Each structure stands twice: as C-alpha cells, then as structure tokens.
C-alpha cells in the first residue's frame, strides 16, 4: 500500500467534513497563536532586557570597592577586557558660588571612555561627547541639582578645593534613573581633576570603580570566574550584564510567569478541543471506516487515512496559529507597555515560531491519536448492523502508550514553561486528578440516571435525559471536555486574582506615594512644620541607625574573620548596615520563622554582643507620606 493512496483517501474523505475539521483546526490555531504570541513576546522582552541591561550598566563588567584596588591584583585586572575606565565617587557637599547654594551630592570623577554602551544625554549635546572623549575641562551636573539652585551651564561649581565651570546639564546617563538622580544628584568631573579637589585623604569614604568593555561575544562571567576568590578577598564586587539582567528580570517575574501560564492553558484548551473534535469526528466516520474495512482495508490503513488527515490539518493550523501569534506579539507590547520596566522592541522570534509549529503538530497527532486509535478496531460488521458495538473490554496497549506520551508531553511542556520539575509534575498530577474526577462524575451521572430514571417526567424531558446514557452517548467525553476547559480557565482566573491581589495591596490607599529620606534629628521639627503647612499626613517614621556587625551566633566578627571555613564573605562582616526597627509588621510582611524580637531587658542578650551599639535614638530617619 503506497503512501500516496493514503494521502489521496485522506483528501477525498475530508471533502464533506471540512466544517467539522475547521473546528478541530481552530483549537490548534488558537492554542498555537497564544503560545507563539506570548513566547515571542517573552523572547523580545528578554532580548530587550539584555540590550538595555548593558546600557543600564554602561559596560560589560564593573568592579567596585570601597578601597583602592589591591596593587597585587592590578596586573591581572589590567589584562581584563579591551578597554577600561576608572571612577572614584564619593558624597560631598558641593556649592554653586553664583547662587550661594550648597547641597550634599554624589561626586563622580570619571576617566575617559565611559559609557561603552548607551550615551550621555546632555545640554548642550556636545558636552557629553567631549566628557566621554576626555576633552572636558569642567563638570557635568545633574539637571535636578541645577534646577534646585537655579544654576546654569556656564556657572561654576565648587567641589572641595576645586572650582570648575559647569560645561553641561545631564539629563540622562547610563546606570542612573530619574529616581536615583532625585535621591542623590550627581556632579561629574574629569578623573584628572580629582586630586585638585583635595577630598581624597586617608579615611575618606570613596567608592572605586573600573568599567570594562570586552570583545563582543565574550563570556564575561566565565572570564572573571578564576579571579572570583581573589576579588572577594580584596572586597571587590563585580557586576556583569548578566547579573544586572537578572536583577531587572526579577522585577516582572510574575508577569512573565503569568503569561507563560496563559500560553500553557491556551495550549491545553486547544488539546482538549482537538481530542473532543476528533472524538466526534470519529463517531461520524465509523460507517465509512466499516465500508473500507469491508472492502479490504487493514486497521492500520484506515487509521493512517485519518491520522494523515488530522496531522495535515494540524500542521496547517499550526502555521496559521504561528502567523496569528506573530501578529499578537506585535500588539502585546502596546497593551502591556505601561507595566514594563523596559521598552520592548518587536521582532519575530524564530525559536518561538519553530516551537509553536512543532508543538502544534505534536498536539494534533497526540491528542487526535487518542480517539483515532478506535478506528483500528472498527468491525466491518457495521456495514450489516449499524448498531454493532465493538468489544472494548480488551485493553488496547497502543492506547496506553499514547496516554503515557500525552502525559509526558504535558509534563514536559509544563517544565519548558516553568523550568521546575516539581511544578511541572504537580501540574500534571493536578490535571490527572481533575480528569479522573470529571470522568468519575460522567460515569456516575450515567449510572444514576439509568438507575433512578424519572419515569414520570414529560416525554421531551425523558428523551433528553435518556440520550445521556443511550448507546453512542457522549456524556463522559463532553463532561471531561467542558469540565477540563472550565478547570483550566478557573486556574487562570484564580492565579490572575492572586497576582492582582498583590498589586492591589501596593496600589491601595494605605500605601505611600512620597518618601522623604535622610532627615537628620535636628531637621525633624522643620520638616514637620513644612508638612503640616502643606496638610500632608505622615504615615510612618522610619528610624535609621548605621551599624556594623559585632557577632553572629555568639561568634565575634574577629573570630569569624579568622575562620576561613565560616563561609561568611568578608565584606558582609566589615560593611556598614543601615538598620531600622519597628514593633509591628506591615500588612505586606509575614514572619516566616523565629519569634518577633522583644525589647531587650539588658543592654545585650549575649556577652559577645555587648560591643554592639544599643542606641535607641536614630542617626537619621525616613518619612513615608501620602
């Protein structure tokens, strides 16, 4: 038997059933459109984050430390990357001589070259380019700071002993958001003028950074891996595009996960639609199959005719679905644009389209195969007795195999979407449980109706009910299809509700929309009066105390530093922590372990902690206001 005859028969047989097959195909089209649209969008989002994370960092790698880099490490560090720029930044009071304004600002003394990705946005535009080229003889100052003191380009700014002209107004610079500019406005000076400020002395709190650019395609994380232990020992932090990307990605993990769930549910609904449509289709085709069997077609040939038919339509449905999905992904960034932290550039994702086509074909074959397998067992005797029913008591091993592959497909796909086996297996088990419960419900309904049939009811009602248990009834199939569809949609809405619940908490009227930072104790009264004058209520005052660790689990920092096996990074032991305290948890917080802290009866609970600061008065505070 040649394949071309099977294809010809598949084509011939489809002639009068195309509207039914369109229903089957629409299940695939919608499932694949959702999958391709959402996955393409996800790919575009990931690519945009990757590209914009690079711009956010301004380099491929940033090394930073609170001390000048260890001279012993410098030869190794100088070999890294193609080019590099050094920076020293520190907080300092800056003044504007013309307007007599003074303010605490972040001073960044930068060497030429930075940024390697993204660009300065300055007024005048050439000022940023000159600064980057190392040709600048003055300072670039944040727009916020200039606006605050009514200063302008051409004025002078004084940093320590250095007075330089303001050569540009900074509107945007890589690695800085509008928010961070408002909290800590920056003054950029050329690195070669740093010494002239006279501010770098022993004991000065300076952050040293070096920005590196690597050759395109370099695996930066792998390149610095051999240096990691040495960097840590020297208290040098590293920040790569990948780590920055991870930080940005975390910000909307919920959104991407929810969209993945939407795609998965759409696909599963498509699978349910395929199985239901083909099941009904097979019921209609039993007579034709019996005729073919009678004329000499084998069970395998009869099955292949319909499998070719459904696979062909599945492929066509997947192609249409993928095309539709490509259109959907063009619209998604516009719909979701205002919620996203990055601007998503739109491009067709070949990976998502390829995956969609393969998935569409796989779901058409697998989920159509379940009902189609019955074709192999259609008896030719149906040509003589239309009501003949095949023996279904003997289990079909092939059906068991297909069911196992369907299970693997669902769990495998769930894993592909979640990347967690536990969740994928849990989802598969939940689905199986729902399937079992619905099948049980269908069988139970059929049994109970037959047993307690309401003989006294009207003719129409009796006929309607009797059809639920008569031969060839579709009761169990329909309950499973409709029930599973409802179950999946309910899961989706439940998840949506949970996610929106979280957003609502932060968007509710109890949440602040203005935060004042760094209010010194002596400033409290003045700020209080100012707020009262503006009728702005203070929701919460957050005291902040700067501390250093004294001990962990009764082991002093000194002991921990000597213990090389403690696993506690050195920077964690030596850095300053800005700590607050409260006596109650907020509505969004939950204590997951331990007991709530109580006020200590004695200055310290453990002898080793006696050296810890126990001050009850904060060094500064932040006020949360609405």
């Amino acid at each position, binding site marked *: 038997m040649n394949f071309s005859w099977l294809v010809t028969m598949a084509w011939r047989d489809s002639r009068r059933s195309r509207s039914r097959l369109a229903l089957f195909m629409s299940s695939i089209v919608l499932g694949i459109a959702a999958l391709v649209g959402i996955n393409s969008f996800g790919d575009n989002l990931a690519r945009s984050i990757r590209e914009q994370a690079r711009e956010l960092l301004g380099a491929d790698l940033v090394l930073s430390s609170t001390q000048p880099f260890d001279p012993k490490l410098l030869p190794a560090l100088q070999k890294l990357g193609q080019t590099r720029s050094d920076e020293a930044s520190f907080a300092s009071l800056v003044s504007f001589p013309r307007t007599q304004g003074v303010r605490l600002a972040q001073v960044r003394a930068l060497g030429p070259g930075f940024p390697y990705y993204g660009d300065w946005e300055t007024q005048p535009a050439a000022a940023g380019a000159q600064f980057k080229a190392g040709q600048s003889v003055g300072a670039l100052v944040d727009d916020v700071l200039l606006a605050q003191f009514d200063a302008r380009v051409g004025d002078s700014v004084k940093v320590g002993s250095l007075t330089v002209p303001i050569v540009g107004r900074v509107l945007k610079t890589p690695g800085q958001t509008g928010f961070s500019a408002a909290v800590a406005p920056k003054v950029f000076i050329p690195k070669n003028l740093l010494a002239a400020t006279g501010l770098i002395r022993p004991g000065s709190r300076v952050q040293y950074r070096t920005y590196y650019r690597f050759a395109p395609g370099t695996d930066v994380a792998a390149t610095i891996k051999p240096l990691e232990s040495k960097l840590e020992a020297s208290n040098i932090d590293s920040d790569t595009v990948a780590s920055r990307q991870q930080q940005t990605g975390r910000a909307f993990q919920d959104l991407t996960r929810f969209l993945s769930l939407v795609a998965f549910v759409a696909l599963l609904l498509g699978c349910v639609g395929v199985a239901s449509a083909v099941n009904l289709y097979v019921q209609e085709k039993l007579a034709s199959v019996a005729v073919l069997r009678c004329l000499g077609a084998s069970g395998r040939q009869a099955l292949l005719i319909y499998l070719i038919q459904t696979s062909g339509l599945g492929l066509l449905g997947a192609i249409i679905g993928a095309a539709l999905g490509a259109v959907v992904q063009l619209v998604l960034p516009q719909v979701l644009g205002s919620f996203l932290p990055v601007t998503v550039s739109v491009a067709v994702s070949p990976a998502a389209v390829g995956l969609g086509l393969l998935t569409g074909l796989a779901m058409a074959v697998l989920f159509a195969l379940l009902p189609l397998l019955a074709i192999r067992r259609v008896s*030719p005797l149906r040509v003589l007795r239309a009501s003949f029913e095949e023996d279904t008591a003997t289990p079909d091993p092939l059906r068991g195999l297909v069911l196992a592959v369907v299970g693997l497909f669902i769990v495998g796909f769930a894993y592909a979407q979640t990347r967690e086996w536990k969740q994928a297996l849990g989802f598969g088990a939940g689905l199986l449980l729902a399937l079992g419960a619905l099948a049980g419900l269908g069988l139970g309904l059929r049994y109970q109706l037959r047993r307690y049939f309401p003989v006294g009811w009207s003719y129409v009602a009796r006929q309607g009910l009797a059809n639920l248990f008569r031969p060839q009834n579709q009761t169990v199939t329909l309950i499973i299809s409709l029930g599973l569809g409802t179950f999946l949609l309910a899961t989706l809405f439940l998840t949506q509700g949970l996610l929106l619940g979280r957003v609502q908490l932060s968007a509710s009227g109890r949440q602040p929309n203005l935060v004042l930072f760094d209010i010194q104790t002596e400033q409290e009264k003045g700020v209080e009066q100012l707020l009262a004058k503006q009728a702005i209520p203070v929701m919460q005052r957050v005291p902040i105390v700067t501390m250093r660790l004294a001990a962990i689990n009764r082991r002093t920092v000194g002991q921990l530093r000597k213990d090389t096996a403690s696993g506690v990074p050195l920077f964690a032991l030596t850095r300053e922590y800005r700590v607050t305290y409260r006596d109650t948890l907020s509505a969004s917080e939950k204590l997951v372990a331990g007991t709530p802290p109580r006020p200590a009866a004695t200055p310290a609970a453990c002898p080793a902690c006696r050296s810890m600061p126990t001050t009850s008065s904060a060094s500064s505070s932040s006020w949360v206001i609405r």
Partner: protein
Amino acid sequence: MTSLQVENLTKTYTSGGRQLTVLHEVSFSLQPADTFAIVGPSGSGKTTLLGLCAGLDRATSGSVWLQGIQLDKLSEDQRAAVRNQHVGFIFQNFQLLPTLTALENVQVPLELRGERNVARQAQALLERVGLGERGHHYPTQLSGGEQQRVSLARAFANRPQILFADEPTGNLDPDTSANVVDLLFDLNKEAGTTLVLVTHDLELAAKTQRIMRMRGGKVVEAEAARTR
C-alpha cells in the same frame, strides 16, 4: 475446489449475562458460479450467516472455507485481505462512501489491491451499469437505483470469485428493483462469480439455483441445486 464451504457454524451472543444463540450448526457448500439464496423472516439469522461466510465476523464454533482458505484461523486484517482478493459485496443500503464520487467509489477495491490505471477500469464498469456519464457525481446526487448500480460496479471491480448480496433490492421500488436484479444476474453470469443472496423476497430468491430457508437460526429447508 469449492467456492464456499460452511461446517457446523454456530454463533452465540452474550447479552445481560444470558447466552443467545442466533445460529445453530449450519452447514452447506457452494461450487464456483453457483447462485444461492438464503431466505427467512427477520431474525432468522440469515444476515448473521452472511457476515460469517464473508469473513466480517467470527463464529462461536464451526468453520468457513472461502476459496479454500479457512477464515476462522485468520486475524481481522488477514480476513480483510481475503475479502479484497476474492469477495464482492452488495448491501441493502448501498454503503457507498459519501465523500467519494461514483467513479472513486468503484476505484477503491482496485486501489486497495495496489492496481494501476484504475480509473479506466472503473469507468468501464460504470458504463457497463449505464452510469458512464455520472462518474463525477457524489452518492447524494444519485437516485437509490443509481446508487445500487454504482454499488454493483464496485462489487465487480476486483473481479471477485464470490459475491455476497444482502437484500439488494430492499430499498428500491419494484421497477428499479427489476432493473438492478437483471443487471446483478447478468454481471454475475458474465464474470462466472458465485452468488450468495440474502433476501426475504421469494421471487428474487427463485432466480437462484439453490434456496436455503432459515428460521430461528436453524436451517429448515435446503433445496437441491436446480438449473436456471
């Protein structure tokens, strides 16, 4: 070689935990080109017997040899191959494939045999039954008599050694029935095919060489062969 040999054929169904025997120990044999009618009232077991003889079903006990092949030893797929090689069918309700044209319906048995140039053979058969111009029509576009004539063309397409006809005129009016019956017997004579006819129409049965009467699943009378 006998064309069809049936020995002690019995068919029992289990229904609601009870055994229901619909065919009791039926035996007969047919030589090539014999014409044979099985007659009896509804429920007498004649269609069950036809199904077993044609290899569409399995007997509970007893054996069927078709062209010397013992059917009860074969799987369903093997019996399908035997049907394709040796058997033709005509049914009361025609059983044409609704999505295929008249020509394609006639082609199917030939295509299943893997033959080439089947369209020419099928067209010749349609012309023989007087439907040469209707080959591109679908079954729903043909009258009952025309459908049964397409069915006849299909039944003879694979040049069968034995033809099974189940109430071939059951759905036709008297005039159309007469035409179809004449065509059936003419084609059968031309091809030298053994004919097994199931009917309750005694006039139609009288056209065959032998008649077997059944009642309650048992043979109640078996006539000796006559020359028609």
